[in-house]
C-alpha cells in the first residue's frame, strides 16, 4: 500500500503541475457554472476545447477500457485528477451527459459496436450528448413520458417533445426515453430507451431562455423523426429500467463515470470569503452578529453534508437505513446551494439588488448563482419529490 501511495503522490504532483500550466486564462466573458448553463457559442467552444485538452493529456476516462479510448487505469488515478481539478478550480468539462450518463451506460450494457462507436467521441468532446427524459407536461413524472416511438421497418418514427435538453443545439446524440407502447396498465412497461442521433430531419432543438436571462436549455421537438431501430439499448419495453440504471450512474452511486470536473464549484468557502470582503450597510458584513450566526449555520450544514457522505461508506454506521444518505444527496446539496447563494445577496447591502454587470459584487455571480440553483432543486425530481422518496422508500411511509 505504501508503495502504491507513493506512486499516487508522484502522480498527483504531475497532475497538479500540468493543470497549473494548462489552466486556460480568463476568457474575458462570464463562464457558465455547469453544462446546463452553456448559453453562447463562445462559451461552448471554450469548454469543449478545454475538455479535449484534458483528454489528450490522458486525464479523462482514465478508468475506462483502453480499447475504446479510455486509460485502463485504476479508478483512484481519475479520483486524484478530479480532486486536483476541483482544488485548482479549472473550468469544467462540458460533455456531462456523455461522460457521466451515456458513457457508463454504454460501457455497462451496450453492444461491442456501441462501445466502438460512441465512447471515444464522448471523451474527446467530438460527440456531444444530451438527455431526453423530461417532457413539458410531465416534469418530475418520468414514467409518464408520452413522446411516441412507433416501429416502422428498420426505424422508429418519433413524435413528441422533450424538455431541459442542455447542449441540445450542440449535441450529436441524445439518450432518449420514449413510449413504444400504450398497452397494459403499467405505464412503465411501455417505455424504451434510445441512443438517438440528433442530426436527423424532424428533430428540432429550440433554445429556452432561463430565468437568469441566459440560454442553456432546449425544448426538443420530434416531428416524424426517423431513428434507426438499432439505436435502441435494452429491449423494447425495458426503457424504464435502463433509465433508472442511467440515473444510478448520474448520481455516481455505482461509479463508472468518466471523471473530470462537471461544474464550477461554489461553496460555503466562497461565501465566507465574500463575507470577509463584502460590505453590508457600509460596514464589513462579517461584523454583524446575525450575519455571523447565519454563516455558522450554513457552514454547519455544509459540514453535515460532507460528513454524511463520508459516513455513508461505513456499513456498520448505516445498518438501519442504508440508503438514507445516498438517496438524499441531491436534496441536501441543492437546497443548501439555494440557501447560501440567496444568503450571499444579503451580504451586499443595497448592492444585493444588482445583477450581472461590472458594477455588481463579483460581477453579479451570486445573483445568477441563486437563480441557477433552482435547476438542481427542480431538475431530476423536485425537492418536494425528493422528500416523498425519502419518506416512502427510506422511511417506508405510504404513498402520497
Amino acid at each position, binding site marked *: 500500500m505504501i508503495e502504491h501511495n507513493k506512486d499516487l503522490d508522484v502522480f498527483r504532483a504531475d497532475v497538479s503541475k500540468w493543470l497549473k500550466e494548462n489552466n486556460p486564462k480568463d476568457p474575458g466573458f462570464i463562464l457558465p457554472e455547469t453544462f446546463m448553463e452553456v448559453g453562447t457559442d463562445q462559451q461552448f467552444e471554450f469548454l469543449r476545447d478545454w475538455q479535449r485538452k484534458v483528454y489528450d493529456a490522458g486525464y479523462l476516462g482514465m478508468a475506462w477500457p483502453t480499447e475504446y479510448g479510455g486509460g485502463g487505469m485504476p479508478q483512484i488515478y481519475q479520483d486524484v485528477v478530479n480532486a486536483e481539478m476541483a482544488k485548482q478550480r479549472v473550468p469544467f468539462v462540458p460533455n456531462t451527459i456523455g461522460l457521466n450518463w451515456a458513457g457508463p451506460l454504454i460501457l455497462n450494457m451496450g453492444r461491442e459496436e456501441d462501445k466502438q462507436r460512441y465512447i471515444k467521441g464522448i471523451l474527446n468532446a467530438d460527440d456531444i450528448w444530451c438527455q431526453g427524459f423530461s417532457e413539458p407536461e410531465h416534469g418530475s413524472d418520468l414514467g*409518464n413520458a408520452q413522446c411516441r416511438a412507433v416501429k416502422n421497418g428498420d426505424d422508429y418514427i418519433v413524435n413528441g417533445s422533450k424538455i431541459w435538453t442542455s447542449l441540445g443545439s450542440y449535441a450529436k446524440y441524445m439518450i432518449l426515453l420514449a413510449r413504444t407502447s400504450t398497452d397494459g396498465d403499467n405505464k412503465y412497461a411501455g417505455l424504451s430507451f434510445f441512443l438517438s442521433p440528433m442530426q436527423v430531419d424532424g428533430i428540432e432543438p429550440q433554445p429556452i431562455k432561463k430565468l437568469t*436571462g441566459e440560454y442553456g436549455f432546449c425544448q426538443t421537438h420530434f416531428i416524424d423523426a426517423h431513428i434507426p431501430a438499432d439505436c435502441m439499448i435494452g429491449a423494447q419495453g425495458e426503457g424504464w429500467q435502463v433509465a433508472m440504471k442511467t440515473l444510478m450512474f448520474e448520481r455516481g452511486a455505482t461509479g463508472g463515470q468518466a471523471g473530470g470536473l462537471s461544474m464550477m464549484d461554489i461553496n460555503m468557502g466562497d461565501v465566507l470569503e465574500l463575507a470577509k470582503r463584502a460590505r453590508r450597510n457600509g460596514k464589513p458584513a462579517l461584523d454583524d452578529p446575525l450575519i455571523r450566526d447565519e454563516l455558522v449555520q450554513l457552514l454547519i450544514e455544509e459540514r453535515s453534508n460532507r460528513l454524511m457522505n463520508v459516513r455513508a461508506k461505513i456499513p456498520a454506521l448505516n445498518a438501519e437505513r442504508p440508503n438514507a444518505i445516498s438517496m438524499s444527496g441531491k436534496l441536501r446539496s441543492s437546497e443548501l446551494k439555494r440557501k447560501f447563494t440567496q444568503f450571499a445577496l444579503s451580504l451586499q447591502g*443595497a*448592492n444585493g439588488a444588482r445583477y450581472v454587470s461590472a458594477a455588481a459584487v463579483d460581477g453579479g455571480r451570486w445573483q445568477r448563482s441563486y437563480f441557477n440553483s433552482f435547476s438542481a432543486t427542480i431538475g431530476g425530481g423536485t425537492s418536494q419529490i425528493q422528500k416523498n422518496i425519502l419518506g416512502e422508500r427510506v422511511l417506508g411511509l405510504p404513498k402520497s
Partner: protein
Amino acid sequence: MDSLIEFSEEQSMLLDTATDFCNSRSPLDKVRTLISTEKGFEIDEWNAMVELGWLGITIPEQNGGLGLSMADVVPIVEAMGRQLMGSPFLTTTLASQALIHGGTQVQQNEWLPKIATGTIATLALQEEDGDWDLHNLSAIGSINNDSIELTGKKTFVLDAAVAELLIVSISLQGMPALVCVPVDAIPAKQIQRETVIDETRRCYEVNLEGVSVPRSAVMANTCFDVIQRASLLLLSAEMAGGLASTLNTIVEYLNTRKQFDRLIGSYQALKHPAADILLGLEAVRSHVYHAATIYDSGDKAAIEAALHMAKATASEQFAFAGDRAVQFHGGFGFTYDCNAQLFLRRALWSQYQFGDEKYHRQALAPLLLD
C-alpha cells in the same frame, strides 16, 4: 382609543380606481414588453396618472396639489405593485415628499406645481458601498463663492434619465445636505443605466464630477427621516401588492398543473407553503395599513416601529414567496417565460432597498426591547 387600522372612503375609492387602472394599463404582457424598452414605462400611462391627480396627492393645495396624506398614496402604490408597474410614480412621490418637508419656499414654489402636472423628479441618495444609512456620504459639495461644486457618484437613482430634477445627498462642510439638481446641470453621459435584478426598474449611476449648482440649491432641511419613512411606507405597500400577485400566480398554477395525474395543488407540500404565503400576505398588508394609519399621528416611536415592521415583514415574506413561486412552477419556473421570475426579481430588488429584514429587525431591537 383610535383603531390601529383605519381605511377611509377616500382610500377605498383610490384603491378601486388604482386597481382598475393598473389591471387594464399594466397587464404582465405589457410589463414584459416594457422591460426591453429604455425608459421602462409608457408616457401615456404617466399622463393618465397625472390626469387622475395622483402626482399631486400629497402636494399642498397652494402648490397645485390635493393636500392629502401619504396614507392616500398607499392604495395606489399597492395596486401598482400588484401589476409590477415600472413607473416613476414612486420616486417622484418621494421626491415631492422631500421638497414638501425639506425644500425652501422657492424650491417648493418652483418644483411642486411642476410635479403635480407631470414633471418627473427623483432622489439620488445611495452610494457605491450600498450603505442603508443615508448619513454616510462620500459625495461631496465644495462651496465656491456662490456655487457648489459636486464630486462623487450616486447609485440606484431611479428613473434619472427621464427626471427633470434630482434631489441629491452630499456632504457639505462635513454635514449631510440635500441639493436640488436640475438634470440639465449633469452631462448626459454622466447618467449611466445600471443593471439591476428587477428588470422593470430603471436605475442609474449619476456621476457628479464637474456638476455645479448655485448655493440656493441647498435644501432648507436635510429631511432624511421624512424620506426614510416615506420610502419604507411606499416600498412596503408596493411589496404587499407584488406579494399578493405572487400568491395568485402560485395558486393559479397549483390549480392547473397536473403531476402523477393529480392537480399539484392537492399536494400538501405545495398547499401548505401556499397557506404560509397567504398568511404572510395578510400580515404584510396589515402592517402596511397600520403604518399608513398612524403615519401622520406624530407618535414618532410608534411610527418608526410600524415602518420597520412593515418593511421587515414585507422583505421576508415577498422574498420567500418569490423563491417558492419559482420552485413550485417546476421546470416552467426555471424559464424566463414564467412570470414567477418577474416576482422574484421584484422581491429581491425591494428587499435590498432601504434595508432588508435583518437590518430592520436590528433597528427594532432597541425600540422594542430596551
